[in-house]
């Protein structure tokens, strides 16, 4: 018994060090050497500062931006320091009230849009940090965003389709659109349009003729 206790102590020490220190250290070393961007959170840099992670959603309410999945994190939505789902059961009256309120808000944002709302736009994600919405969810918002930005609907729709990720390897998961990346792309288009001389033709940065 005492012998086994001694063995247990030694083996627990050695194996804990191996699996609890050496193993994560090794994985960290290799990860930082070969996949530094992914290992540090897939952060997006714009003009020298980090504006988000391509894997972590943000909360958008501005009509000129696409909005993402509803988020149940507290105290603010998309709190990436405290992930959480709503955990509302299917028959919970609170779920019904919340979904009705979301439908109302989305309908209010675009009275002309009569298509039914895709389910992912009115249901909260599991992590509260879902970076993506369904393609249907993005297309539903196209007319509103186009109107708010004074852009042709076609331009915005093309932007959405260009940003649509298909199933991975054509099999896995679901087609989806990353909301943050889409909105950043929209903001860039808007910035280009704003910097264009009025009435002038399209100029690229390297175009001096």
């Amino acid at each position: 018994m005492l012998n086994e206790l001694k063995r247990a102590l030694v083996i627990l020490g050695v194996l804990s060090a191996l699996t609890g220190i050496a193993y994560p250290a090794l994985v960290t070393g290799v990860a930082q050497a070969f996949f530094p961007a992914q290992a540090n959170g897939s952060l997006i840099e714009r003009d020298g500062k980090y504006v988000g992670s391509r894997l972590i959603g943000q909360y958008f309410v501005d009509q000129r931006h696409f909005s993402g999945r509803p988020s149940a994190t507290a105290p603010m939505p998309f709190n990436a320091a405290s992930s959480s789902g709503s955990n509302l059961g299917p028959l919970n009256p609170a779920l019904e009230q919340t979904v009705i309120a979301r439908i109302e808000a989305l309908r209010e944002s675009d009275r002309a849009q009569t298509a039914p709302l895709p389910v992912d736009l009115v249901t909260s994600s599991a992590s509260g940090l879902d970076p993506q919405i369904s393609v249907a969810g993005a297309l539903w918002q196209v007319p509103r965003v186009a109107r708010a930005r004074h852009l042709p609907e076609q331009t915005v729709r093309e932007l959405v389709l260009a940003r649509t990720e298909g199933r991975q390897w054509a099999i896995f998961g679901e087609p989806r659109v990353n909301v943050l990346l889409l909105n950043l792309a929209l903001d860039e288009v808007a910035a280009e349009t704003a910097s264009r001389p009025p009435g002038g033709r399209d100029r690229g940065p390297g175009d001096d003729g």
Partner: protein
Amino acid sequence: MTGNGILQLVLYVVSLLALAWPLGAYMARVYEGRIPVFMAWLRPVERAVCRLASVRDDDAMPWTRYAIALLVFNLLGVLTVFALQRLQEILPLNPEGLAAPASDLAFNTAVSFATNTNWQAYAGESTMSYLTQMFGLGAQNFLSAASGMAVLVALARGFVRREATAIGNFWVDLLRSVLYILLPLSIALALALVGQGVVQTFDGHATIELVEPVGFEQARLGPDGQPIRDAQGQPVIERSVTREQTIAVGPVASQIAIKQLGTNGGGFFNANSAHPFENPTPLANFLEMLSILLIPAALCITFGMLVGDRRQGATLLSAMTLVFVALLAVCVWAEQSGNPLFDRLGVDTRASELQAGGNMEGKETRFGVVASAVWATATTAASNGSVSAMHDSFTPLGGLVPMWLMQLGEVIFGGVGSGLYGMIVFALVAVFVAGLMIGRTPEYLGKKIEAFEVKMAAVAILVPPLLVLVGTAVAVVTDAGRSGIANPGAHGFSEVLYAFSSAGNNNGSAFAGLSANTPFYNLLLGLAMLFARYWLIVPVLAIAGSLAAKKSVPTGAGTLPTHTPLFVLLLIGTVIVVGALTFLPALALGPIVEHLQMIGSH
């Protein structure tokens, strides 16, 4: 359901079975000490550890000594994890300066990880330091898994050895499980996951500048950390605006790899594998899902090889796969059919190439309905317990499937090692029942199954339901138990039943609305996890010891063959009948009545 959905399901099951075969063969060689050449370079490490701990390969233990070694080792594991949590404030690798969890939570978590349950009453990113996660929880992920695998190997030896007193050396079995099986697989999976976007860093949380500032409301807290209340007793709400997002990171990939492979399931983050940093892409999701069932499935093959009859392993694997596929179909169907509420409100829930449709509450867009339902079924078939969607928000029948899979005793694949030894216990009962029907002494794999084995099997089969039903009953009749319930009505009962089904079968998943971080639940669920783990391991080792001491009986005309489709059905029948009879009344009060309410109200 779309054609792609069916393709994803088929691909999952086929990949699982295709990988289980070679891995199972490899593990059989490892446990027989015939380490293949490509892993032989680890031999010196194994020998060095053995020498350091004065363990000898040929020092075979009787079952009692084997059990004592395992219990002592696991007890030390509990104490270590408890101490690490309570001292994390003064220990290194705590960049966020997280305080020590309360002692009831620390007890619950320590037990949870040492018993391979990984029930989490805490939110990882805001509770546990990196050191606690890695050195405490991460290490136990390996060691609890290896303990389960060791018990299975000991049981296999019980069938193989004749008139022997010993069933192998626990330390050697443990060490080999970690060194040759769990570690190499984890390293490979962890790196694959980092490539997909899982974070792996020792840095503290990242802070980014939001594209849109976010306004929010929260209760103003007093100096004691409690909300300040106004004259009417309502909490004082203050409005604030934030321009930044704090993003929790950490050494995640290394932890996720072993939590999937070792049927542990304890997430680095609160949202577990629904969190984009734990499970960033559909491909990562597929790999993580495969990892849940990979070792439990492969161990069936290993067992067949160890007992010298591959058909026996294939039979057990077939029985598991059949039950799994049937329940998987129910879960996918229920979630894709969705919640009639959404249809009543005019929301579009049809699955198409543009959206997953169905019940998307508590699910991630990248996984949709099909992959989320596969995960829920796999994680509860195995005693993994990680989640990629919130089970609490599943439809009643979609939630019934994971709950019932746990209640079946975690034998449909089950935990690494523990699932298969649980299934073998059911096989003993099945041959016993068949023996009664045909009037012969029951035999299994050449050993007579007599009163002692059947008694031990009965203990192993009856302990978990006792824990689940008594625990649930206590919780729903006490204020302390009821106060944790989040959802009203039948669903609230389901939350409690699910919690005890999870702890009482060492699964670890939850209907997470339940506020389980209270002294009441921490203590009661902690005890349930302890009993569920060790009141199975000890009887199983006793069976191993008893079988090893017996002679082998030659197959005769009266022997019931245990490698036939008939036996597959008999085994499934035994598991289902025990599970259904025991839990049908409780399920009727929870998910079944909830389902009737759901379809009746529309």
